[in-house]
């Protein structure tokens, strides 16, 4: 079936709306492919958003309409006819004002939306954004519809952008794979070999099968070669991808473990509440996000109260994360300092008991978080500047990951500076090595202890702000990290920041490569643990042993 030549795109859409059968409806929509204008795109968008309706007049005539403009008190809006874009008039000739509740929504399903997309895709072939053009081209290519070929070839001659050109060549070749002409097929396979895109894999495989079935060795061979090229490319992508993922996994490990490297590594407090400090940082981020938005209501301990919001939107809203970073640090540091004053300070001489007390603290904090925020996870959305990615040669560099890597570098450098280049750092290290002697030299050990524990806790809080961008935020969030954190610090060598850095990166890399090789995250994790056990065989006191001559260290 083909639409009457006289029909405008709008009319075709109206016709489609009035078609009941969903397959038939898709076919009507299909006739729009390659034609149409901006209005069609707008209509389709409205359709997807349930803003198209069918108006039935008293005489039973059905008219597709779009509701637009301000709602009045009764919820009524202007109704635009879909077929001509004019206001719908009532029997009295005056424009009708309708409310959504009186009308029937035009239904749509997934396949219909795909058909609409195909229409829009062709519109998008000339879109101004290259990304949009690529998406359009790919959709057409994957559909392997010979009818679209001219449009694509035409576009290729006009196209300036290199990436879009590649996508166009790929799409053309994919469509040509379906050609009846073996020579064309052969050329297409050659082209695909040159392009070696990941997306072409399945299509080449299908072509290979077909060729084998049809006993066409030349084609099959060409397909095999093309596939080989794709697989080579895939190996390279996986290799670099794994490198990057290892780096980012290592950076996250580093960020979450750094605080522990201070409280446990430097201070020797076996701080089981480290995970909860991370959680506190994450919840702080959550609160800040809500304050930037519409506020937050909480009902801990049966009391209800509300934190008012600022109702910002757009970039102002998304800047919440920049404020959340320092605030997470400060909140967790404050909690850490309170903890140090009330519990930890009595345990410096009993490190193993610090494990028990801090475990108690961690239970209590988990319960408190649960009481305040509920046991469900809460929703922290990533600002747009953290949620995109760069894709270079099919390797995806997520911005959040890149940000974490950069951030890890910054805080490691910062900590290193504080500890080694400032008087405070010197005092911290002195106090942690020998509290009694440090106080005999006049160091205000209580204050230094407090600040050191505060720093470690603050860093954990900062890590919390980060993991809120990557994972869930809930009262038991800390439990997911605590084992890994201790492992990282211990493998690096307790009390050695440089060791922590290397061990975090090493574990991250090992984890990602093993996952890649074994194809199983659980086995990967087991292997990493076994590797750590073996590693400690070789270096029983971690990567960097800080040797001392005393008999009982």
């Amino acid at each position: 079936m083909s639409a009457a030549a006289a029909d405008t795109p709008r009319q075709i859409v109206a016709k489609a709306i009035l078609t009941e059968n969903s397959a038939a409806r898709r076919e009507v929509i299909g006739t729009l492919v390659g034609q149409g204008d901006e209005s069609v795109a707008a209509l389709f968008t409205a359709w997807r958003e349930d803003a198209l309706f069918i108006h039935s007049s008293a005489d039973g005539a059905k008219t597709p309409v779009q509701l637009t403009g301000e709602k009045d008190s009764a919820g009524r809006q202007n109704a635009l006819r879909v077929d001509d874009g004019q206001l719908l008039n009532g029997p009295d000739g005056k424009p009708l004002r309708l409310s959504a509740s009186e009308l029937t929504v035009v239904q749509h399903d997934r396949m219909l939306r795909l058909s609409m997309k195909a229409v829009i895709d062709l519109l998008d072939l000339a879109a101004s954004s290259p990304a949009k053009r690529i998406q359009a081209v790919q959709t057409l290519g994957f559909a392997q519809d010979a009818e679209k070929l001219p449009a694509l070839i035409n576009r290729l001659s006009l196209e300036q952008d290199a990436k879009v050109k590649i996508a166009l060549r790929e799409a053309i070749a994919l469509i040509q794979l379906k050609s009846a002409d073996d020579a064309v097929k052969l050329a297409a396979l050659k082209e695909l070999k040159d392009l070696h895109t990941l997306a072409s894999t399945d299509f080449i495989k299908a072509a290979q099968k077909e060729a084998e079935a049809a006993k066409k060795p030349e084609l099959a061979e060409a397909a095999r070669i093309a596939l080989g090229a794709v697989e080579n490319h895939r190996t390279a992508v996986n290799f670099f991808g794994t490198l990057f993922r290892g780096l980012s996994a290592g950076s996250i490990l580093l960020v979450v473990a750094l605080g522990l490297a201070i409280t446990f590594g430097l201070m020797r407090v076996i701080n089981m509440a480290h995970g909860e400090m991370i959680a506190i940082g994450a919840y702080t981020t959550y609160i800040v996000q809500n304050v930037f938005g519409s506020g937050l209501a909480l009902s801990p301990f049966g009391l209800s109260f509300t934190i008012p919001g600022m109702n910002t939107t757009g970039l102002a809203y998304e800047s919440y994360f920049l404020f959340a970073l320092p605030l997470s640090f400060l909140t967790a540091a404050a909690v850490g300092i309170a903890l140090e004053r009330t519990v930890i300070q009595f345990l410096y001489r009993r490190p193993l008991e610090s494990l028990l007390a801090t475990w108690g603290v961690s239970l209590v904090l988990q319960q408190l978080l649960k009481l305040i925020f509920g046991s469900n996870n809460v929703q922290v959305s990533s600002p747009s500047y953290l949620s995109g990615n760069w894709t270079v040669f099919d390797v995806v560099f997520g911005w959040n990951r890149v940000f974490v890597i950069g951030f890890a570098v910054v805080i490691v450098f910062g900590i290193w500076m504080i500890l080694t280049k400032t008087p405070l750092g010197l005092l911290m290290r002195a106090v942690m090595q020998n509290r009694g002697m440090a106080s005999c030299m006049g160091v205000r050990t209580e204050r230094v202890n407090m600040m050191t524990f505060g720093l470690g806790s603050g860093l954990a809080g900062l890590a919390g702000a980060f993991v809120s961008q990557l994972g869930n935020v809930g009262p038991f969030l800390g439990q997911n990290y605590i084992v890994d954190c201790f492992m990282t610090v211990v493998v690096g060598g307790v009390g050695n920041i440089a060791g922590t850095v290397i061990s975090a990166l090493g574990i991250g890399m090992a984890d990602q490569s093993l996952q890649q090789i074994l194809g199983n995250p659980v086995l990967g994790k087991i292997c990493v643990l076994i590797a750590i056990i073996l590693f400690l065989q070789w270096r029983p006191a971690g990567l960097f042993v800080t040797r001392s001559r005393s008999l009982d260290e």
Partner: protein
Amino acid sequence: MTSPLSAPITSSKRLKIEIGVVAVIAIFLIVIFPLLNAWGMVSNFHVSLWGKYLCYALLAISVDLLWGYTGLLSLGQALFFSLGGYMMGMHLMLMIGELGKYAEAGKNPNGLPDFMIFLGYTTLPDFWKPFFSFGFSMAMVVLIPGLVAYVFGFLAFRSRIKGVYFSILTQALTYCASLMFFQNNLLMGGNNGFTDFKRILGHTFADPATYRWLYIATAITLVLVYVGCRVLSRTKFGMVQQAIRDGENRVLFSGYAAAHFKLFVFVLAALIASVAGALFVPQAGIINPEEMKPEKSLEAVVWVAVGGRATLAGPIIGAISINALKSWATRAFPDSWLLILGGLFIIVVLFLPGGIVSIPGKISAFYKARFSKKS
């Protein structure tokens, strides 16, 4: 703490008192309590509950043997507990036979454990077969965890891994094992583990008497282990053990191979934990990889600390009291009991470093101080 200037208390008198107290408690636990149950004065529920507590007490002793007496803070004792449990569990699974779910549904002609049917097995894998024998299974309760402990301990102590490194390593070991046991293809029941046991040594679990006998076996084991450890701590071995705790490096220069001593204790503790686990599983009715999680080991450490480290009564008291508290509070304060428990840990550590067992000493010291001031 005894003052160095005061005359040492005659240890033989003390010993006699101790033997008396232990004997009384042992008789109560082994004889009187089960009798009360048989007479209906103690509910079946409490028998199986106390059976579990006593298993936990055994686990706590094993932790204390390592941590309290030898200075090895193992965060992996739950692994051996679970391994023992799994060995017992394998036997119990094979004893289900025609009573299982698939068998009921007529889908299990060969009496395989249900999870195997589910994975498509029709015959029992070879390594499962010997577990039909109770004796073999009990031998495995000793052998498998013992072997794991020996190999791990050998590697760790040989390379002189100690302190927190040892702790973290044991934690990694048990975590690793739990991940492994989670895997279905290990053929150990995956995440569900073993459950739905029907009978042991011909006795059905539907009969309260079965639980009573399990309880008695546990109580006897506990008393034996207590006495054994008490004797051990008084030998020269016990002295070396504690010397290792206080100055491992120095011990070497007295000619003792610290690694051998540690290995011995580590294996011994693993065996105690394993036996505890084997006794635990029929009474609790389930064993799954969750029991190997590092948190479980940590919990056992907490029992020891709360009860009193480096004593033998401490871990027993700690394990029983915390678990009893937990049983009670999860019913009485289902929402806030962790708050209570967490708070308790903090308070004990801060104000009662010697644990519960140090309370009588504290009280008597307090009265002594008042008394001496007056005089």
